[in-house]
């Protein structure tokens, strides 16, 4: 945080709590961005896998569970992939919602803190 040039504004406990809350939200926001990126990648991979599956004419597909590749029929793998896609999509939706909520709360806090401290506080990303 920037150090103001000997400013007069007093910092109350409520201000401190707002600053703490902003910090927490900001941290969670960055974590969410990472999680969303990973969820999107997983979605893409599942999409690719599903497409490959349609193209292949092999009946037995090696599907990875844990560290091994089990031999499964094409249909079983198809339904497995569909299941996984559903789970990932729901998860992605939830993460995006949380991210929007974070952004809204952070905007609110910025208004309050900049309102009181103006230049003495810096809440932007470096």
């Amino acid at each position, binding site marked *: 945080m920037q150090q103001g040039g000997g400013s007069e504004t007093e910092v109350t406990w409520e201000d401190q709590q707002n600053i*703490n809350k902003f910090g927490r939200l900001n941290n969670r926001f960055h974590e969410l961005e990472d999680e969303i990126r990973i969820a999107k990648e997983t979605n893409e991979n599942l999409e690719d896998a599903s497409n490959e599956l349609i193209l292949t004419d092999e009946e037995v597909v090696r599907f990875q569970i844990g560290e091994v590749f089990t031999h499964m029929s094409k249909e079983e793998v198809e339904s497995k992939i569909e299941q996984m896609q559903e789970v990932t999509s729901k998860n992605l939706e939830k993460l995006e919602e949380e991210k929007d909520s974070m952004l809204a709360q952070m905007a609110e806090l910025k208004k309050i803190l900049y309102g009181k401290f103006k230049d003495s506080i810096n809440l932007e990303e470096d």
Partner: protein
Amino acid sequence: MASSSAVSERRGIPGASFVEDVQIYLTQSGLDANSALSFLQERLQQYKLVEMRLLAQQRDLQAKIPDIEKCLDIVATLQVKKGTGEALIADFEVSEGIYSRACIEDTDSVCLWLGANVMLEYSCEEAVALLQKNLENARASLEVLVGDLQFVRDQVTVTQVTIARVYNWDVHQRRSRQAASTTPKES
């Protein structure tokens, strides 16, 4: 120390007291601005160390949880195959890039790696129960850890703000003293 309206500590981590008034804080602690600043900087470093430790623990747990979920997946797959009478064929890695084929017959039990070079045989149901319990424990530990991290980060923020305020107070004091020492010359 000036009044603190915060939690005084959490699981062995001391809380950073909030300073209501810098002047009173310095008078009560008997420190001048520079000593106070060094003390606060030291506290900040200690908090940062704790944060590093917690982050490392968090990474470990976050790696452990998908592992347990994969184990549960495999056991579930074995259980599904059980009814059909077919053997489960799986390719597994023997060494980097080299795979071998395993034919897993209908089975009622699995072996679970417990760590410390110990592997135990369990019935499928017992295995699922054990893995579920481990998964729940890991998730609960992760939650507590995240709470700890939030607490430490809050204390870091409080300390950083206090450092800024003590510094500003000091700058303000110097300016006032300078202004006071130059005015007599004007008279």
